[in-house]
């Protein structure tokens, strides 16, 4: 259990604060926060997980997409108090044991980014898309990621990146690698 520093140095409980228990990338946290704190601010400013980006701050662009209990959400459009007792996954949790997630590998190898600002949200939305539909058509990928905006790539390489990941995730695990 990680208890964040601001709680130890302590705000007193009141009607406009709340203590939440949330598991982020497999780590349990207990935090006392203001009710109005958005999930994206909680992740970035309290847990210092700055991989999740704030783009438009109006629930359009999807740069702040994270998974709550496996479902993508725009974390600028959800209060942190709403995830009390839930599991949150951010881009920092994709890499396991120094090995990139197939979606990360796809974005790397297929050059699915230019400036990279939208990439964390794109990858989280892609992870959820592939969990629901392991072998999507190009049309399904484009529709599935239509809540995420990219202003650089024209989306062509993003589609290729997701296709790469889909293929990779369907390969049987190789022994001894």
């Amino acid at each position: 259990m990680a208890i964040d520093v601001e709680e130890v140095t302590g705000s007193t409980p009141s009607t406009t604060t709340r203590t939440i228990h949330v598991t982020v990338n497999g780590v349990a946290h207990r935090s006392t926060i203001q009710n109005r704190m958005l999930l994206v601010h909680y992740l970035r400013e309290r847990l210092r997980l700055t991989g999740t980006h704030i783009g438009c701050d109006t629930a359009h662009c999807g740069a702040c997409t994270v998974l709550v209990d496996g479902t993508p959400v725009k974390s600028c459009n959800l209060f942190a108090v709403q995830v009390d007792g839930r599991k949150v996954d951010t881009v920092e949790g994709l890499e396991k044991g120094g090995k990139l997630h197939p979606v990360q590998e796809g974005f790397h190898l297929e050059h699915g980014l230019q400036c990279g600002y939208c990439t964390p949200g794109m990858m989280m939305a892609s992870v959820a898309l592939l969990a629901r539909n392991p072998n999507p058509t190009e049309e399904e990928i484009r529709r599935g990621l239509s809540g995420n905006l990219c202003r650089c790539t024209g989306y062509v390489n993003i589609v290729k990146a997701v296709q790469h990941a889909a293929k990779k995730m369907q390969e049987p695990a190789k022994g001894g690698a």
Partner: protein
Amino acid sequence: MYPPNFEYYAPTTLDEAIGLLDQHQGEAKVLAGGQSLIGMMKLRLAQPAALVDINRIPDLSYVREDASALAIGALTRTAELGRSDVIRARYAILADAGREIADPTVRNWGTVGGNLSHGDPGNDLPACMLALNAEYVAQGPKGRRTIPARKFYQDSFVTALGPSEVLVEARVPRAGPGSGSAYSKMERKVGDYATAAVGVRLAVAKSGAIEGAGIGLTNVGPTAIYAAAASDFLNGKTGSAADLEKAGELAASASAPVADNRGPVEFKRDMVRVWTRRTVAHAIARAKGGA
């Protein structure tokens, strides 16, 4: 961007939620999906003193068809509409809308009850419910009551729902034999509100005559609009090209759009005409067994 602070409650029963709303005398808002409300709070367009989060209340998320109606629980996420087998097979208008509301990520959280009770003329589901002649079940301190969708929308963001009431279920009359429906949305880009959108439900009798037609319009007036004259006109007709054209003209007359960056009034009104024509044709094709 932080909204002003508020008291937050996460009740686990509907009675508790209604008690909290009642106690706050109209200063509290229900938080369901929050996909419209939270944005409005960030922009200070809404500043509720308290939020009553209904997401911890069990048994408010369901889609089930009984002998008289399709019942949809208020906490059903809008994404579920496009995935439900019974909706896809028999209430295609709702499956269509379930693929057009906002974007896929927003649809994962936005709820049917929120979309229906928010009162924004740009929400897509109210026009569908007007077309379907649905009823809403509201629960408040005095118990449950049923409100026809066609009497629910009074002005922009003003509905028949009381300040201490929660919309708990939408009830759509059960689709009979030969029924078909469709929703079409003209939008500039994914995630935008409609420039104009049209929902249609009808049935085609064995004689080929249209029965029980209903047409609802999105974002071309201060509320979602039930196009009564266009709907009544179609009953008894066969759906000829001239019938479709006339229905489109009548629906356009029922619209009351305002000019904005989606287009001038004349354009939007004409889009209502064109999209009504197309959507009625689509609903007829579905009623006759096509996709």
